[in-house]
């Protein structure tokens, strides 16, 4: 598949080299800290109870991606304390509070359906499927706020090729982990669980579509979809399904949670589109977290060069 660069971006544009090197130094230092922490874990456990849920893994040696934006990143604190993860409550501040004891080890993702080689992958296997990249993407929520996040992962197509989809596979269905005992707030969410999402196969195979295992140099916090999630940057945020447990290749268009809840408001495609309003509010503007005034929303969230061709000739109002 042709991997096109973001227009007008060279590798050096993304971050000044000195900053980048400092960052590498920093990450290496963090790696040392991490290793020391592991070695000293026995001693630390004696001193204080282990906080497994909070211990993020540091990733080092990340490959920088040509898809990354140079826009100012939001802080980790903002991105991990302003979440929509209805399994853990509907207020933006709920998931950060309620997801801290979310058990993400062991974690298995089942890849099944119209594939020649169905697999059940444990997290460690997923982490080794491809070199991890850092991709700084814009993320636009249907609620008219947006963020810029340095995600970590690799193109979903790597995983797809591994299982060899059959010619019958035209769509990919995704499912989020659901356990009412760990997610007692889910019953107030008003939507059905487990949370399900879906993509057309070509959308899933687009190099921008990211199988994501971390952000800001470390593993995902539980409230941001630990331990593995999807990131589809040209679609509204709810398409980027969190805490993945099942990936199913299939012939038919899969049901998706928000579309099932209200099909006039949330379409299957849900491409970011300033010209197609949500029935209750305009989508022409958005508020970047950290800013007071709103900025115009860009078609396909600014990823038109990479994705627009997939929708040529389609009525994007009808297939919103």
């Amino acid at each position: 598949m042709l991997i096109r660069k973001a227009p007008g971006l060279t590798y050096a544009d993304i971050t000044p080299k000195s900053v980048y090197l400092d960052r590498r130094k920093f990450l290496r230092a963090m790696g040392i800290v991490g290793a020391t922490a592991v070695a000293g874990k026995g001693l630390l456990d004696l001193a204080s109870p282990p906080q497994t849920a909070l211990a993020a893994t540091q990733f080092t040696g990340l490959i920088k991606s040509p898809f990354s934006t140079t826009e100012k990143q939001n802080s980790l604190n903002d991105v991990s304390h302003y979440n929509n993860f209805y399994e853990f409550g509907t207020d933006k501040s709920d998931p950060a509070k309620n997801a801290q004891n979310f058990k993400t080890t062991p974690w298995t993702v089942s890849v099944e359906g119209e594939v020649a080689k169905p697999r059940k992958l444990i997290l460690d296997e997923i982490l080794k499927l491809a070199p991890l990249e850092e991709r700084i993407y814009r993320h636009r929520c249907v609620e008219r706020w947006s963020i810029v996040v340095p995600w970590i992962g690799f193109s979903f197509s790597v995983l797809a090729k591994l299982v060899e989809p059959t010619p019958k596979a035209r769509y990919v269905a995704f499912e989020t982990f659901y356990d009412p005992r760990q997610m007692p707030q889910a019953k107030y969410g008003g939507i059905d669980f487990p949370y399900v999402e879906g993509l057309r196969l070509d959308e899933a195979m687009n190099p921008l579509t990211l199988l994501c295992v971390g952000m800001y140099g470390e593993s995902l916090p539980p409230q941001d979809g630990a331990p593995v999630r999807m990131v589809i940057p040209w679609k509204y945020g709810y398409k980027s399904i969190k805490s993945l447990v099942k990936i199913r290749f299939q012939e038919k268009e899969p049901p998706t949670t928000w579309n099932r809840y209200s099909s006039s408001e949330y379409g299957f495609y849900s491409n970011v589109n300033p010209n197609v309003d949500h029935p209750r509010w305009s989508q022409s503007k958005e508020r970047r977290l950290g800013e007071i005034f709103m900025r115009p929303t860009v078609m396909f969230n600014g990823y038109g060069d990479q994705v627009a061709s997939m929708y040529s000739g389609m009525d994007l109002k009808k297939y919103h």
Partner: protein
Amino acid sequence: MRALLISKWAKFAVFLICLIPFAGLVWRIIKSDLGANPVETLQHATGDWTLRFLVFTLCITPFRKLFKLPDLIRFRRMLGLFAFFYVSLHFLTYLGPDQAFDFSGMLKDVAKRPFITVGFTAFVLLIPLAITSTAGWIRRIGGKRWQMLHRSIYFAAVFGVIHYYWLVKSDVRKPLFYGALVAILLLWRLGDWFFKRRSKAPLRVAAPHVSMNS
């Protein structure tokens, strides 16, 4: 109880209490403690407090009768004006950050989005009530007509709840909670009116509504 209600300090104390939410928000602005989306935090907080003060205002008449505390009337205007104070802030957080103070853009938005239309209508309905809240205006309009005019708070409260209900995505617990409170307070009035009509008691002047003692 009565002595407490009519004491000259009571009004001052209630006034200060009503300012606490505002002071809290100012404090959080100063401390940069409004979360990842400060504008939204302010919009939601001022909207919440508007609905709460509308509910408090609507509580006065039923509480006066149910608890035989006619002196509560002294606080009704103040509570209503605080509802207007918080809705004005709420409107400003929309006109400023969302619309960049562009009135024509705002009017387009009002015309196009039902949840904005209904919220804006509620705000507009409250403007004449705030203006005519003085004793001078009651005299000028006449008690009966003034009372009729001020019944539009019922519509403002209902529209405010609808505005909130249409805003949320799927968790409708909070809008339904406010909706239930407003419904109870309005149904009580309906029941009260119905009961009075049926009892065919000689008409008594509705002292609370034209009361000047506040």
